[in-house]
């Protein structure tokens, strides 16, 4: 299966099975399409008819190149993975936890997927002992995995800051005892950021995720405190100082766009102009009947924003003031192996969410939905059937994915989005699919453009 498209003047063909990327001219892209069945004579004839100005020798050379790529398994490659790994399911080790250290928040963002941090339940802060037990659980079930990830999440984690610090210290002890490496991440709305938090995070947090939606009027539409006051003015200077102090350490500005700011490119650029270079912008997660939801009718504008974003990123790269956009990050040469691309996000198996009371859920998006409760730190996994369902969920479990060119880039998408849209983790959230594919087209085009830029620079 191949997928060919033209974007920003680049003609690109992606080979679905090998994930190889070919950058061509218009004629080359047509040659790839016309020669897929391997009928050399027919392809030659059709190309001569379509491009009478192109010498036969050039057509022959191009088809020879295609033959070589076919032999190398980089074009029209057969999908051998399902046969090679017929029962490939998520491993039984746990390697990542999302610790809900606070089911309470000092903001009242009306679009919050977590019900303003309470996940439709009681307000709570995770006691240190529950967090400690969670880290013990993670190590105990991590098998031979050395890299373990813990995300301090909520609600607002800084409302339980002392526990966060104590858990990091405990994690460092566990590292020495068990030869593990913890990568801690903190997600925060920034309201409680101060010097002490910043300095601790810069010593201990592998990554920090800072919630900012973009322009003030966009950010303050939803991200208000309990008195209805916008948070932009309070948090932006703190985020700027935090990022300045982080230097080269990882961070992401993480924004949410909704139906109300379909021109979200302006919000991304606003964040770039504030001096932030590691940017992420996500479509809102909400029910389809919520006025802020992204609809099918919104998609043309959403796609156009992503395409223009890629163009602007290229311009800024050439101007020497680049920024990264998370969804456009792709390393074609060093990306994940096919095993990872089949398994996907690992929710419910290698990645679990832990509530303040120690309940286990497949991920943060399922917390509070009783039918998705997997068990608890005390009991272990009590709903083995549910965990097996998540374990069997991989790219091959989704009927729609089997014919999708992007399946080994996407890996089947977000299980939570699928479940909430269709009732099943093996379904697909169609709007999410369409958005992912457009983002991937843009990301690959960026790689093609940067490759050309670097080549010309040599």
């Amino acid at each position, binding site marked *: 299966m191949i997928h060919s498209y033209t974007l920003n003047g680049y003609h690109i063909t992606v080979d679905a*099975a*090998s*994930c*190889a990327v*070919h*950058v*061509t*001219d218009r004629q*080359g892209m047509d*040659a790839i399409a016309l020669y897929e069945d391997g009928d050399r004579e027919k392809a030659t004839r059709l*190309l001569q008819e379509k*491009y009478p100005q192109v010498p036969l020798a*050039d057509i022959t*050379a*191009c088809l020879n190149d295609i033959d070589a790529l076919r032999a190398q*398994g980089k074009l029209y*490659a057969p999908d*051998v993975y399902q046969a090679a790994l017929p029962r490939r399911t998520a491993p039984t080790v746990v*390697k*990542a936890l999302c610790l809900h250290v606070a089911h309470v928040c000092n903001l009242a963002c009306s679009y919050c997927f977590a019900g303003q941090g309470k996940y439709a339940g009681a307000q709570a802060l995770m006691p240190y002992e529950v967090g400690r037990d969670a880290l013990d659980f993670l190590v105990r079930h991590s098998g031979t*995995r050395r890299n373990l*990830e813990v*995300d301090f999440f909520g609600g607002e984690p800084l409302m339980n800051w002392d526990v966060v610090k104590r858990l990091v210290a405990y994690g460092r002890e566990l590292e020495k005892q068990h030869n593990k490496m913890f*990568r801690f991440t903190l997600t925060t709305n920034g309201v409680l950021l101060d010097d002490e938090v910043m300095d601790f995070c810069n010593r201990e947090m592998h*990554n920090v*995720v800072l919630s900012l939606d973009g322009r003030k009027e966009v950010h303050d539409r939803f991200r208000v405190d309990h008195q209805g006051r916008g948070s932009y003015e309070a948090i932006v200077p703190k985020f700027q100082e935090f990022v300045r102090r982080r230097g080269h350490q990882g961070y*992401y500005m*993480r924004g949410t766009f909704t139906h109300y700011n379909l021109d979200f490119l302006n919000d991304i650029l606003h964040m770039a102009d504030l001096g932030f270079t*590691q940017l*992420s912008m*996500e479509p809102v*997660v909400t029910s389809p009947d919520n006025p802020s939801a992204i609809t099918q009718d919104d998609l043309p504008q959403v796609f156009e924003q992503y395409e223009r974003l890629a163009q602007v990123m290229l311009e800024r790269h050439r101007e020497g003031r680049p920024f990264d956009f*998370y*969804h456009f990050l*792709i*390393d074609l*040469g*060093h*990306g*994940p*192996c*096919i*095993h*990872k*691309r089949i*398994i996907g*996000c690992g929710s419910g198996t290698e*990645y679990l969410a832990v509530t303040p009371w120690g309940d286990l859920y497949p991920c*943060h*998006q399922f917390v509070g939905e009783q039918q998705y409760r997997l068990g608890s730190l005390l009991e272990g996994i009590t709903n083995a059937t549910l965990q097996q369902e998540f374990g069997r969920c991989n790219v091959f479990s989704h009927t729609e994915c089997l014919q999708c060119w*992007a399946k080994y*880039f*996407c*890996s089947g998408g*977000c299980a939570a*989005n699928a479940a909430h849209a269709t009732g099943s983790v093996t379904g697909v959230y169609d709007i*999410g699919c369409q*958005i*992912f594919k457009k983002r*991937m087209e843009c990301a690959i085009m960026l790689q093609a453009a940067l490759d050309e830029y670097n080549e010309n620079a040599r």
Partner: protein
Amino acid sequence: MKIKTLVSRDMVDSLTTGGCGECQTSCQSACKTSCGVVNQPCEKKAEEDK
């Protein structure tokens, strides 16, 4: 009538060289909602390149 193939990881080869599981879980990254796995670099390759 040109074709240029960008350098990319050999997926068939990764059937045997991959699968260590040390790579980052997608939702530990920036998004928490809609990412795919391709944004995640391979930890094993990063180690080998050091």
